[in-house]
């Protein structure tokens, strides 16, 4: 298998996703199967082929650097799990 359980735990940490210990083995199996399937890409001869990231090869359009949004803090914070005085609350980061 391309990956072992330790590697999957490592990736999960990088992605900030908690995986239950009892699920690690099936994630390892499934992700390994996906990576095995993806391995077919190695057979593609891609010398001198430029990578394609936007299918229409558009150039990122820029806009004028002016404020277009109005302040909607209260409205936007209605969806926030925890706020105080207009601030988003998270657990203490600095002791």
């Amino acid at each position: 298998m391309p990956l072992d359980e330790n590697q999957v735990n490592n990736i999960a940490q990088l992605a900030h996703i908690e995986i239950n210990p009892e699920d690690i083995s099936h994630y390892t199996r499934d992700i390994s199967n996906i990576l095995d399937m993806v391995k077919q890409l190695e057979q593609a001869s891609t010398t001198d082929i430029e990578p394609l990231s936007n299918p229409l090869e558009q150039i990122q359009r820029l806009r004028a650097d002016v404020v277009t949004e109005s302040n909607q803090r209260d409205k936007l914070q209605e969806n926030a799990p925890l706020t105080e005085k207009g601030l988003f609350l998270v657990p203490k980061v600095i002791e």
Partner: protein
Amino acid sequence: MHRKTLADIALGLEKKEFSSVEITTSFFERIKQLDPDINSFITVTDEQALIKAKLADKQRANNTASPLAGVPIAHKDIFCTEGVKTTCGSKMLDNFLSPYNATVIEKCEAAGLVMLGKTNMDEFAMGSSNETSFYGPVHNPHNLNCVPGGSSGGSAAAVAAGFAPAATGTDTGGSIRQPAAFCGITGLKPTYGRISRWGMIAFASSLDQAGPMTQNAEDAALLMNVMAGFDPKDSTSSDKPTEDYTAKLNVSLKGKKIGLPRQFFSQGLDPAIEQSVRDALTVYEKLGATLVDIELPNADLATPAYYVIAPAECSSNLSRFDGVRFGHRCENPANLADLYSRSRGEGFGDEVKRRILVGTYVLSAGFYDAYYLQAQKARRLIKNDYLNAFEQVDFIAGPTAPSTAFSLNNEIEDPVAMYLNDIYTIAVNLAGLPALSIPCGIASKLPVGLQLIGNYFSEADLLNAGHQFQQNTDWHTQLLAQSVR
């Protein structure tokens, strides 16, 4: 009432044969009665729909209504709708009331369309069976033990079951076309950038595209006239002018060339589907088109390239769900890292987590070149195959999916098997091309879809080809008639 098309309803409203309130109420009655068996809606918006319907009736009375005013529609729950729950099929957004409307929603509202509700979908549009939804699977109206396809499975099932005359969908690797095929309806995935992605919850930004899911090609054209267009809020929106997508519907197909890629009629294709598709192609020959064998030499690279690029973009897009600003948050986090990882671990389902992990892996230092860059190079090879093909032909045709709708709980345990459902649809997203799926037959009592792929911005031509087929066959009406009651 429930089998009227968008065009029928618009005409009936114009002639005052019925009111918008009447037709809207009749859809809600049908949803209430039959959707418990199908599960196509996550949210039904009856109160605001009736307000909108009354307004449309008033406009009709004063002759100030736009052509589609008062016509009902269902929206995939991936489109942000102001003040209405917008879940994307995920526990992560179970409590999310969008503070704004997606551009697609704004355009539909401006056209006077009446939103019936938000349809069920695979979580964050990741799936081909609608089984990854937090809100439970959708059942195929043609056979309740079968899946409707995905990810726009709720939209497809709602149209097939007569809960809505039409619906919006999104397509990242086949998510409009495959469920359209499985449910016996018409689905169009437009050219990348033709319809704004603003307010459409992102899965893989270089592949995602919204489109109409309807009872026939004419209705898809009517909806394209509403949905398409440049949007300064979407930096990848195309500024190419739109056209009247109904204008070419009745053009003759005489002299058109349809390419049949050998790779779309090879191993893995259900012989009954191949037969239906080949029979459908003879209809095109009778309409004056010529069939040409073509090659798409890099077709096999599409699935592997997609399952690098889509997870990579998804891992980046879904990093916004952090339990801080909106969405699910775990109880009693010990610290910030715990808040992130438990909120995401609890809020996302298995398939979404799997794809984020694959994406994180292929983008990580040391693997980026071998996986991500190689996939993007393969993506260009795939695009070049299509560009070459369109030098010779006007359309490319083949089956939409290798099988008909499969049984619930059949393939979800094996992600790679599930991914192979999209072998004929995925390349179109990688290349950014438009493609249409129309019903073209029945195999084992289930609908079969024909996929037509066109060159960039050829939506009107694809809809022309779809409409001409539907003027000369009755699969689209026959299949709706054999759907649920």
